[in-house]
């Protein structure tokens, strides 16, 4: 019943430089995660996107990029879903 969701997660988790992907629902609960990413991140990812949306309440939710060394984390909210992607530049 969740094959299409699995397929989408697998497809994006195997893209270049991508280490892990996660989808959260509107309650911050993890719908699915693939790769080296902690499913508990769903709640915090959504909380971050909610806070950032307050910067410009009239605009569409922005994409958030967090950088640390050669790793980066991209978070974006779109309606019911919040996506979190962990990426890493190869050394």
């Amino acid at each position, binding site marked *: 019943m969740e094959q299409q969701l699995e397929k989408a997660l697998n497809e994006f988790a195997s893209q270049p430089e991508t280490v892990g992907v996660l989808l959260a629902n509107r*309650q911050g*609960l993890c719908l699915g995660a693939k790769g080296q990413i902690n499913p508990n991140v*769903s709640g915090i990812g*959504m*909380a971050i996107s*909610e806070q950032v949306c307050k910067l410009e309440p009239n605009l569409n939710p922005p994409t958030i990029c967090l950088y640390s060394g050669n790793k980066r984390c991209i978070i974006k909210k779109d309606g019911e879903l919040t996506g979190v992607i962990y990426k890493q530049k190869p050394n």
Partner: protein
Amino acid sequence: MTDEVKKYFNGLLHKVNGLYIIQVTDRDGVPLLRVSQDKNVDFALMPSFIPTFATASEQAGKLGLGRNKVIISMYSNYQVVQMNKLPLILTFVGGEHCNTGHILALEHQLDAHLEDIKLAVNEA
């Protein structure tokens, strides 16, 4: 020191959007620590509220899925997240649209603080 701990829990309460109460009790519902925003959420203070969860958690452990850790209850106006940290029980009460995932993510942060509080209950 108690103030610092309360301040920490208050900080958590304000970090999560829509969270009204964080409460640490023993399994009979006797409160050890409670922080709340000014909302009328008296049902969490009812004496039978916590023991009911303790029973439900014990019975839920017989479903063949291992020990029950968390029960999330969604009501029309509130949501209640209760964590089995026996001898302690952790209760979070939030609004309907509160970020449940964020509350669950707090569990790991709180474990370290709960170790101290557990000692107070265990000295029997």
